[in-house]
């Protein structure tokens, strides 16, 4: 059985959604970055003066910081950044209902393979198309509960004080070069506010899609979950194939107040030329619980480490992530937990799959500050290699300043073995089915945490990719 040959035929990493829907941008900035572009963005969004100042200062910070030397290969990124558009606006105004959404955008959803029934089930969707929210309908019950679920622009316009109170408090501009870049040119994203004690049963979903060649995507999301509140936010996206390198750099800030619970789920399936550099961070207060569920497929390079800053006593943070690195892809992902209060607990579970020349790295930080007595953290990272060439690395950073802390770290690397394949094939499964089953089994601990439609979508993605490439 020539295993490698067949694995190559499986082509999990070949992007099948490489269609481009013809778009009609109303406004198109010139490529490249300058303070003029930043002013243009701010003027176009009719922002208050303080936000323009914030953006311009962030631009200076961005220019002053060197390109990171760690993680993935960013040497060609500067060229890419000269060519991309930092702002695009496909339409003049927000759409309020599904009927108002333009046909070509509906076609895009159609091509993503979301069945009719599922689209209706996505009733509470806030979808981001290009750099702008175009579709954003809130369920009436949420409005009755006082939940705010708006585009980030509307959040700023309609709730200026609330917005300003929290914006950039979790991820400061100077945090890293790309957080600074995002702060200068951010556009699109969500603003979410869950009032005290409110439990939102149905996940808040934003389904968005990047769709213009050489377009930069700098979404910014700000979420405030008040005391005792509970909610789940889901972001999923898939992008078409581009002819040149593309770039995505988002910033997600979440505040989880005392006794609140929040879960943030992302499934990202970028095209193979995308640089995906995202800063996701949550500030977790006393007795609160934060969970990041993070799936990374596609892209040229992803650097993404969802973080939990556990600042209140007994705060709990969880990071569950899965990454798939196909040929030519590098997934540098993991998580960060900062224990800054007593009896805080955290769990990081990371799963990666590498194929061909794909490379996956786990990069994690666990820091326990002096005084965070009784802090407990556990890290588990499992890597699955689909063939001889694929590669995986683990970079766990552990910094402990508190001697009552208890830290566990466990890492496993496994290779899809001839014995596993033979076993499944000896029961009648052909080689592609057998390989798909092993991969599905490997990601099952993550998939089972997903809402059904996302678990189905994840499995469908894998199955579609495999079906088309065998026989």
């Amino acid at each position, binding site marked *: 059985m020539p295993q490698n040959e067949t694995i190559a035929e499986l082509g999990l990493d070949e992007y099948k959604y490489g269609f481009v829907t013809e778009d009609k941008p109303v406004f198109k900035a010139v490529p490249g970055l300058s303070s003029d572009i930043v002013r243009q963005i701010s003027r176009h969004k009719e922002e208050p003066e303080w936000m323009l100042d914030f953006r311009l200062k962030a631009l200076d910070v961005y220019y002053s910081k060197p390109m990171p030397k760690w993680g993935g290969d960013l040497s060609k990124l500067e060229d890419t950044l000269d060519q991309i558009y930092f702002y695009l606006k496909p339409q003049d105004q927000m759409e309020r209902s599904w009927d108002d959404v333009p046909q070509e955008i509906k076609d895009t959803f159609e091509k993503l393979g979301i069945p009719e029934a599922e689209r209706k089930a996505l009733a509470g969707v806030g979808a981001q198309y290009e750099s702008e929210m175009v579709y954003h309908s809130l369920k009436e019950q949420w409005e009755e509960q006082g939940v705010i679920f708006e585009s980030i622009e509307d959040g700023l316009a309609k709730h200026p004080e609330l917005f300003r109170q929290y914006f950039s408090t979790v991820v400061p501009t100077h945090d890293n070069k790309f957080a600074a870049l995002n702060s200068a040119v951010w556009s699109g994203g969500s603003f979410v506010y869950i009032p005290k004690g409110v439990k939102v049963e149905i996940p808040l979903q934003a389904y968005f899609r990047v769709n213009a060649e050489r377009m930069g995507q700098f979404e910014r999301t700000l979420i405030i979950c008040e005391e005792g509140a509970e909610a789940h936010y889901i972001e999923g996206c898939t992008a078409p194939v581009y002819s040149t390198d593309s770039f995505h750099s988002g910033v997600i800030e979440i505040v989880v107040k005392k006794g609140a619970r929040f879960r943030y789920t992302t499934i990202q399936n970028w095209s193979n030329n995308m640089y995906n550099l995202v800063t996701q961070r949550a500030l977790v207060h006393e007795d609160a619980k934060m969970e990041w569920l993070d799936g990374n497929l596609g892209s040229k390079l992803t650097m993404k480490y969802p973080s939990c800053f556990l600042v209140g006593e007994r705060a709990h943070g969880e990071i569950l992530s899965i990454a798939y690195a196909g040929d030519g892809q590098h997934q540098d992902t993991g998580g960060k937990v900062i224990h800054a209060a007593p009896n805080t607990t955290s769990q990081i579970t990371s799963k990666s799959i590498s194929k061909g020349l794909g490379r996956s790295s786990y990069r994690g930080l666990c820091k326990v500050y002096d005084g965070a007595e009784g802090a407990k953290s556990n890290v588990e990272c499992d890597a699955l290699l689909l063939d001889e060439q694929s590669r995986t690395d683990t970079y766990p950073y552990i910094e402990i300043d508190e001697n009552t802390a208890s830290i566990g770290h466990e890492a496993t690397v496994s290779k899809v073995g001839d014995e*596993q394949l033979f076993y499944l094939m*000896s*029961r*009648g499964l*052909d080689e592609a*089915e057998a390989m798909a089953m092993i991969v599905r*089994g490997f990601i099952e601990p993550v998939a089972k945490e997903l809402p059904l439609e996302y678990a189905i979508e994840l499995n469908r993605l894998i199955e579609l990719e495999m079906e088309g490439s065998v026989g």
Partner: protein
Amino acid sequence: MSEPLLSIRGLRAKVEGEDGEILRGVDLDLERGEVHALMGPNGSGKSTLAKVIAGHPAYEVTAGEILFEGEDVLELEPDERSRAGIFLAFQYPAEIPGVSIANFLRTAVNSRLDEGEEMDVFGFQRTLTEKMEMLKMDPGFATRYVNDGFSGGEKKRNEILQMAVLRPALGVLDETDSGLDIDALKVVARGVNRLSEADEALGVLLITHYKRILNYIQPDVVHVMMAGRIAESGGASLADKLEAEGYDWLQQPATV
């Protein structure tokens, strides 16, 4: 129905990329409905024969043929052999974390149907529950991940469960008895007997080190394998003789 269920002729095989044949001319005929025991000392080639019948990719057949229901299967992939009706109960089954037994078996059953067809989910569940009861397995077993963290006994029982659900024409049981305590052995043996009763045409090739399992599964024929060949064949009494006298009385074939 003139040809045997399984007919092996002059079969020679080695590990791919290595020198030295492990099978050095195996001849064996197994008729429909028969149970054959294949005994022999360690390293005589019993397990290799089992894997070669199932099409393990690590082995290269250098000469001879394996006819299953009159058709040469040597060019068939392992999954094609499985769908044709050959089943191998593994001595060391692989672990497939994250895949439940129910899901795995349903996929295996569906692989036998025409494209687009699927077995009724409830019908499958009934079949699975029934077979599990027969093997005295806890109903929760079906939701466990395939062989993941199983005890030796659980793994062997799981193999027989799969055979019961997939209903092959030929079951090759590779040391299914090893590592089982007497109670587990009885359960497994009863399971195999029930399958034979339910399907009178079922052929079984039972590979074992010990006579113990033959107290519960009556073989029609006993073969002894020595250094890659069938050195002796006979009735059930041959097993008794082996038990009493060991393998030394058998003439060692000339070494290559």
